């Protein structure tokens, strides 16, 4: 991948922060002894595994901000809509389905961003990502709205692509 790597220090600090935060969450009734042990283990664990955790280090903090305050509200709303959509189809005696597999094109470059896009598509109304081939995604759509690549892209990926583009710039 052509993405620039961050410095080792930045990646290491990011790993320590993430591990320490996870430790605090998982040992919830807060106590100072837990925190001491957690800090020690975070530093040691990060030493072993910071290379695998992230490529861009502390810059990820900005992404987590976008994730929490922009992606998450949109995503929650889309997921509720998706469930009501499935509910309406399942509870309707006639079952109004019109399934098909369409192809969409994404402009996202980084593989991680594409994974996020595919996951988001799976959890939004009526769509399930079936396969990915470079910049094309194959989507199973339970009520097909547009068969051509451009129309389907606009309807399926439109909302999330903007957010993910800002997130993985």
């Amino acid at each position, binding site marked *: 991948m052509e993405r620039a790597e961050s410095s080792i220090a930045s990646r290491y600090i990011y790993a320590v922060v993430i591990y320490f935060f996870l430790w605090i969450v998982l040992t919830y009734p807060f106590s100072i002894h837990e925190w001491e042990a957690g800090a020690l283990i975070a530093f040691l664990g990060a030493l072993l595994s910071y290379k695998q955790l992230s490529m861009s280090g502390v810059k990820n903090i900005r992404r987590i901000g976008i994730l929490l305050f922009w992606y998450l509200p949109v995503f929650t709303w889309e997921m509720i809509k998706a469930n009501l959509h499935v509910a309406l189809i399942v509870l309707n005696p006639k079952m109004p*389905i019109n399934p098909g597999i369409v192809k969409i094109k994404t402009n996202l470059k980084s593989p991680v961003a594409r994974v996020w896009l595919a996951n988001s598509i799976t959890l939004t109304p009526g769509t*399930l990502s079936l396969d990915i081939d470079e910049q094309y995604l194959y989507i199973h759509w339970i009520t097909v709205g547009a068969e051509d690549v451009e129309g389907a892209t606009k309807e399926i990926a439109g909302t999330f692509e903007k957010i993910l583009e800002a997130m993985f710039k």
Partner: protein
Amino acid sequence: MLDAFLGWTGVVFVFIGVFFLFLGALGILRLPDLLNRLQAGTKSTTLGVVATSIGVGLIVRGWILFAAALAVFLLMTNPISSHAIARASYRAGVKLYPGTHPDKCEERKWKLPEDGEEK
């Protein structure tokens, strides 16, 4: 007062989750083919389990952080598993619902070697 309010909010969340889980099961029973069933299964189990665990976190204080962590891990892994099942079933040639109209995936060239094919 606050305790009771949070408790009842949690109960409402649990009921919403159970309702959607039930709908997911119904969808798996009623829909015609594997990919449609997978759609119902994935969406309703995700929202159902997230809502149920948040509800439990609100009822029992002190579990809310665990419930949130559970929800996050579930949101990250559930679509991936459904994607893997869908892709495997399509490659294995599971029959689609006859009304599946545009099947753009047919033209797809698989990059991995098929069974018995020379590399």
